[in-house]
């Protein structure tokens, strides 16, 4: 479904070239929950920005169902962005809008009729189990509840891919488990492909089927979660396992 081919990204910082990503190649199949794990500064965020077509790679390309993201023009780019839902670490909800209107927002901007929007939002509220909170404002919610609203919002336009950027890094262990369970449910019920960027090994162990370990802008190791974590071959994976018991 998503094919990342020899992706490289170089930034120029104070006249020095910084290689944020070096020759990254990843294949993500339809319906998978794919984890991308690495320490901070490993290049995870840059990779995510490339996936969301917010950043232009220096070399290589990203294919979405065989169509290149990198060569896409503006109109097409909007379409591609809408085909991917994004969940952020900081939720990024609109603080002056109710839960209902937050979830309705992406539908409104893609021109969905009010009646259809109402149905879709109510359906999503049910999926994330927030029906009783639809008229409250984000400031009245807990972190886990905010993230559930953010997930509903990301799913509003029926994306086939859900990109999650450190979705549980601001949450406590129990809430983390609940949010991960919700993501798993969405993956199995709606067939949405999920990509999770994280530095927490437990998140990957908990719900991912495939994983890529990134370090210093390169892929240290990639494969099925059970293989990678039971027989780690790279020093980074080993230290990730050691550090987070």
């Amino acid at each position, binding site marked *: 479904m998503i094919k990342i081919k020899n992706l490289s990204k170089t930034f120029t910082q104070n006249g020095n070239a910084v290689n944020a990503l070096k020759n990254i190649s990843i294949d993500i199949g339809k319906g998978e929950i794919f984890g991308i794990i690495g320490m901070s500064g490993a290049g995870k965020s840059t990779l995510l920005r490339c996936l969301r077509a917010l950043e232009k790679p220096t070399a290589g390309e990203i294919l979405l169902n065989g169509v290149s993201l990198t060569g896409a023009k503006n109109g097409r780019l909007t379409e591609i962005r*809408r085909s991917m839902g994004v969940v*952020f670490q900081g939720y990024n909800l609109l603080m*002056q809008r109710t839960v209902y209107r937050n979830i309705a927002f992406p539908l409104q901007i893609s021109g969905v009729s009010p009646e259809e929007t109402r149905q879709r939002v109510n359906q999503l509220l049910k999926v994330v189990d927030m029906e009783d909170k639809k008229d409250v404002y984000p400031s009245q919610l807990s972190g886990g509840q905010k993230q559930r609203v953010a997930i509903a919002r990301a799913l509003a336009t029926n994306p086939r891919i859900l990109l999650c950027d450190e979705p549980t890094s601001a949450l406590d262990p129990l809430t983390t488990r609940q949010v991960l369970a919700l993501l798993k449910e969405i993956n199995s019920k709606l067939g949405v492909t999920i990509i999770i960027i994280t530095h927490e090994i437990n998140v990957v162990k908990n719900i991912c089927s495939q994983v890529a370990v990134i370090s210093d802008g390169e892929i240290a190791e990639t494969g099925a979660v059970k293989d990678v974590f039971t027989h780690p071959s790279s020093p980074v994976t080993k230290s990730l396992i050691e550090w987070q018991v």
Partner: protein
Amino acid sequence: MAEFISSYGLLLAENTVDTLYMSLLSTAFSYILGLPMGVLLYTTKEGQILENRHFNAVFGWVINIVRSFPFIILIITVMPLTRLVIGKAIGPTAAIFPLTIGAAPFVARMVESSLEEIDKGVIEACQCMGAAPMTIIRVLLSESKPSIIRGLSITSITLIGYSAIAGAVGAGGLGDIAIRYGYHRRIESVMWVSVILIIIIVCILQTVFDLLARKSDKRNIL
């Protein structure tokens, strides 16, 4: 007391109306001008949705230059323009023009700082949903509404102060009679009553805008 009211009551009432008329109308006009200016100032910044560094630099300078003018000099400088737009250069209506010109760049900076307060992640989220720049601007304005309302109270109260300076060109208003009757002619009672009336207006404006800002803010409700 009765004597004071019969000699100065009408004068004070008329000038209270003039002060309100000048400061409130110029607040309204300065927002009509300054709000889009502030949005432009913010959105053309580096890394922003309508990034244009050259425009941003030039525009920022123009705003700084207008803001640097001492207000009395600005009134005199724009006088020919005031005559052209309003038809005359003297009186409360004529004063609205320089007051607006003077306040618009100030408003632009206030709006800019209100927009700066919003979490950049919100813009990122909108971009991910494929929102057009105009949609993002609408979101930014509605997210910063409480802060913009607070700016509105600062601007309107500042303009009450400015309108006293406009008295120098015959604009009238409470500040003007406080200077002319109280200071120049040494009728202290008129000066003090004018000042008290200004204080009352300022308190009312501040209370009303605070209330509006608090009511519109959905971030602190529990």
